[in-house]
């Protein structure tokens, strides 16, 4: 994972700010805390959602992240916007006319909830992934006491992700350069044959990797990633985000 390029680094943007240097476990817990606070926000407290968003923007600016590039990453939630569009059309209860369309009031609220909370949630995840290298996130999960086998499997997955995805892309180019341009499901055999080959190659690579690990003295467990664990000060710094978000949510609920 030393190579700082390609897919294995997820959304990571190199940097050396306070946010980048915070231990991953503190940031993961802070992200979860923040998202829980966002989800618990009453849907009609528009100012509270603005405040939640401002918190994220402030952190992104403080970490000198390219906000524009991160905002483009929000595209990932587009499938759910389709779901959000669908709700007002089929929602229950009284309807209101919006430019000639009778839309369900409850459905509109539902769409707004998904749009606001979903976007803030994706924003928080993007912030975590942009300021924490992959190895850091996996080490953080390890220190949060996730089962060792799980983090080790995730570690070897992301280590070979570029290799396997690269192989899939080369197969795609090979198919296309041979004129494969399927239009109907009945013509999917070529793509499926590639997927089958990809599995065989991945599995055989796994067997070779295992033998190579044995040759290097692997006895069934990987050494713990020895990063410096979070100090009380780190936890306190990381807690600023969820505590601020929780205060916003509490205030919104008290009204």
């Amino acid at each position: 994972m030393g190579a700082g390029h390609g897919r294995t680094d997820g959304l990571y943007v190199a940097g050396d700010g306070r946010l980048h240097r915070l231990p991953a476990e503190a940031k993961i817990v802070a992200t979860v805390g923040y998202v829980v606070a966002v989800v618990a926000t009453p849907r009609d407290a528009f100012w509270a959602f603005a405040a939640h968003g401002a918190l994220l923007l402030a952190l992104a600016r403080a970490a000198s992240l390219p906000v524009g590039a991160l905002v483009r990453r929000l595209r990932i939630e587009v499938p759910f916007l389709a779901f959000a569009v669908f709700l007002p059309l089929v929602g229950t209860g009284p309807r209101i006319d919006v430019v000639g369309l009778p839309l369900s009031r409850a459905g509109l609220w539902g769409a707004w909830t998904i749009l606001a909370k979903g976007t803030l949630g994706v924003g928080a995840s993007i912030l975590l992934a942009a300021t924490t290298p992959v190895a850091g996130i996996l080490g953080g999960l390890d220190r949060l006491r996730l089962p060792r086998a799980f983090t080790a499997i995730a570690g070897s997955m992301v280590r070979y992700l570029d290799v396997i995805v690269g192989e899939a892309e080369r197969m795609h180019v090979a198919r296309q350069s041979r004129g494969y341009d399927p239009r109907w499901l009945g013509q999917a055999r070529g793509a499926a044959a590639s997927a089958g080959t990809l599995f065989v190659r991945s599995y055989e690579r796994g067997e070779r990797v295992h033998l190579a690990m044995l040759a290097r003295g692997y006895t069934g467990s990987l050494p713990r990633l020895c990063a410096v664990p979070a100090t009380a000060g780190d936890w306190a710094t990381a807690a600023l985000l969820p505590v601020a978000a929780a205060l916003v949510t509490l205030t919104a609920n008290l009204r």
Partner: protein
Amino acid sequence: MAVHIPDGLIEGGTSAGAGVVAATGVGVCLRQAGRLLDERRVPLAGLTSAFIFAAQMVNFPVAGGTSGHLLGGVLAAVLVGPYVGAVCVAVVVVVQALLFADGGVSALGLNVANMALVTPFGGYLAFCGLRALLPPTRTSVAAASGVAAGFAVVLASLAFTVEYAVGGTGGASATTVGVAMIGVHVLIAVGEGVITALTVSAVLASRPDLVWGARHLGPDRSSPAAALGLGSAR
């Protein structure tokens, strides 16, 4: 294609409940996977997870030039067994949420439960049922895995509907959402089924010994290795 549930669609309590179910389920699967794969599980399961991630990027045609992509839950279960398969899909879902911001962090339990538990196990049960009814041939294994994969996609949309009925915040009735979700997923299921069947049959053609769901077929007498009296290429 609504597969990754975002934050805010299902309220907090239901998400937390699903989180407990998901953590328990994946814990059990890890223990079972450990028994089956011993220390080889780390690299093999890791590479299988990387394969599932990559396979989700393989686009297949749906109709008239539109394309969809594989979800791979049942494919993983048929290829490496339901326990290892479930662990691999769970790893993929967690990595997608934390490293690629795909799927809400507070909905992680829901997403793991739907994609890594309901899909592989529901699909694998259907696969075993069909396999028992069909003659023991490779074609049967491929066909059973395809039908099971399609069935599991619909099952996952049903699981989503139940979660929505319990804690949904959408403002539309669970029946309406359920009918729409299941309707859309029946279409997705056809593609998932066809691709899964074709992929399994492609693996069966080159390395039948790697297909967990075809172990009952026994060693292949027609392969060159078997003809020379060699075991599988482990």
